[in-house]
């Protein structure tokens, strides 16, 4: 798909983008079902069972329920910002899809700066989150927004630095090139031994922090902030925040797979988009596993972890990988 569809880049972007967005929205909706089943299994419960076989129609029922609910805008809220925030959250989360490589040439836009594009959009995500917190005119929402901003500007730094490791090793910003440099099981998580694996773990940590997932979900800590920035949102507006969180996690897993786990490559077992999708879903499941196993960090611990450990460590990793490229 590097060759634009029908020879027209505008049409190519429109068609490929629409198809991918619809597929990923469906996957994200079922990711919610999957998480409910997964967490139920971990806690010796059964999870959703009533709607459809083994609760498979639950996401559709949830969606319909949200659509029917009344939209409420608090009287004292900043109306335009309040209504804009949920849309922007979803738009920014979905835009990253443009650079996710699914297979050799199966990428909507193999930008020269693919990795940076994804990270720049991740950093934009916090503007609508903050907007929601501010516009709600609610102290819990505002505190949630404030924590989200503090967390994002801190964790952005180690995220960029750890993403630099595969960039240095493959000497390209293009996600397509980065995956190609890992062909035949030369995945950066395995080789060079050490920096790649540590960088992968750190990248996942920062991605979780950016997506506000446990153990880094202090911006929406329900026990102290009710629900953080989403506290005043009802119906589908809340649904969009909820969906965006899953989209963000899903796309972060895909980017991590492309950066560190060899993307669509599976060594002797061949290569293809199915491996990319499988690995992404495995990383995604790993995130759930972490989420339902760990506790939430306090916000000062969160900041300390980032500035005292993640930033110096990731700087060291960049240095190590640069040395590897020059001398090995």
């Amino acid at each position: 798909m590097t060759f634009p569809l029908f020879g027209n880049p505008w049409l190519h972007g429109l068609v490929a983008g629409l198809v991918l967005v619809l597929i990923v929205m469906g996957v994200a909706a079922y990711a919610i079902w999957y998480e409910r089943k997964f967490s139920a299994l971990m806690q010796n419960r059964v999870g959703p069972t009533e709607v459809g076989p083994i609760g498979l129609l639950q996401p559709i029922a949830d969606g319909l329920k949200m659509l029917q609910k009344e939209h409420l805008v608090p009287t004292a809220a900043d109306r335009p910002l309040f209504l804009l925030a949920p849309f922007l959250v979803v738009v920014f989360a979905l835009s990253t899809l443009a650079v996710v490589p699914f297979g050799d040439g199966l990428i909507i836009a193999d930008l020269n700066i693919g990795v940076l594009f994804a990270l720049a959009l991740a950093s934009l995500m916090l503007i609508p989150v903050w907007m929601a917190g501010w516009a709600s005119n609610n102290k819990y929402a505002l505190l949630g927004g404030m924590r989200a901003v503090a967390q994002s500007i801190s964790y952005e730094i180690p995220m960029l630095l750890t993403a630099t490791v595969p960039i240095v090793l493959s000497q390209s910003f293009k996600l397509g090139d980065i995956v190609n440099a890992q062909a035949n099981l030369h995945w950066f998580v395995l080789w060079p031994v050490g920096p790649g694996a540590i960088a992968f773990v750190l990248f996942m940590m920062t991605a979780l922090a950016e997506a506000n997932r446990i153990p880094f979900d202090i911006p929406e800590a329900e026990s102290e902030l009710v629900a953080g920035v989403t506290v005043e949102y009802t119906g589908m507006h809340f649904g969009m925040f909820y969906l965006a969180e899953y989209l963000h996690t899903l796309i972060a897993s895909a980017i991590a797979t492309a950066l560190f786990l060899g993307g669509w490559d599976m060594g002797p077992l061949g290569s293809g988009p199915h491996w990319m999708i499988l690995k992404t879903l495995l990383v995604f499941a790993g995130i759930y596993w972490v989420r339902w196993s760990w506790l939430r960090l306090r916000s000062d611990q969160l900041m300390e972890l980032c500035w005292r450990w993640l930033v110096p460590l990731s700087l060291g990793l960049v240095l190590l990988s640069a040395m590897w490229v020059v001398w090995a």
Partner: protein
Amino acid sequence: MGAWIAFLVIATVLLVGALMVVSARDLVHTVLWLALSLIATAAAYVALHADFLAAAQILLYTGGVVTLMLFAVMLTRRQSGAQVLIDRANGGLRAALLAAALLGLLVTATVRGTPKLVAPTFNVDSTQALGVTFLTRLILPFELLSLLLLAAMVGAIVLARRDGKGVKLARLAPRVVIGQPHDGGEG
């Protein structure tokens, strides 16, 4: 044709955003309009094939500077959601003079040289060229700039020190622990 349409759209968004930055009355809206015009600037860079510059623009300006501004807004006001209005009654004359001077500069520049609205053609990848230039021909200014930034960072830390060994100025600034309500939960 496509590039022309893209330019028109980007320029319109950029100008509307910039206009709203100076005319919006709510401080928060001003900051958000600024974010929009910065994103539009990044889009203009993309249209000129300066991809790396566009990414850096979003990461540093929208992701960094605007975020810091939002943070500052949140930390300096007391009541949540109360509008922070900008007083534009004063300084109108000075602003008009500045605007006139800037307009004069722009007009002179446009009259003297033909404005170029077409993207320069690169034989090489602009990102790569940028990297190579920074580490060869421009290595000295590049390193000097890093040193300057380092000095600024150290300065910021000295100002923000909590143990009293810092500069006196630190006592004037409100001490805020991130993530904890600092004004007794008033809201």
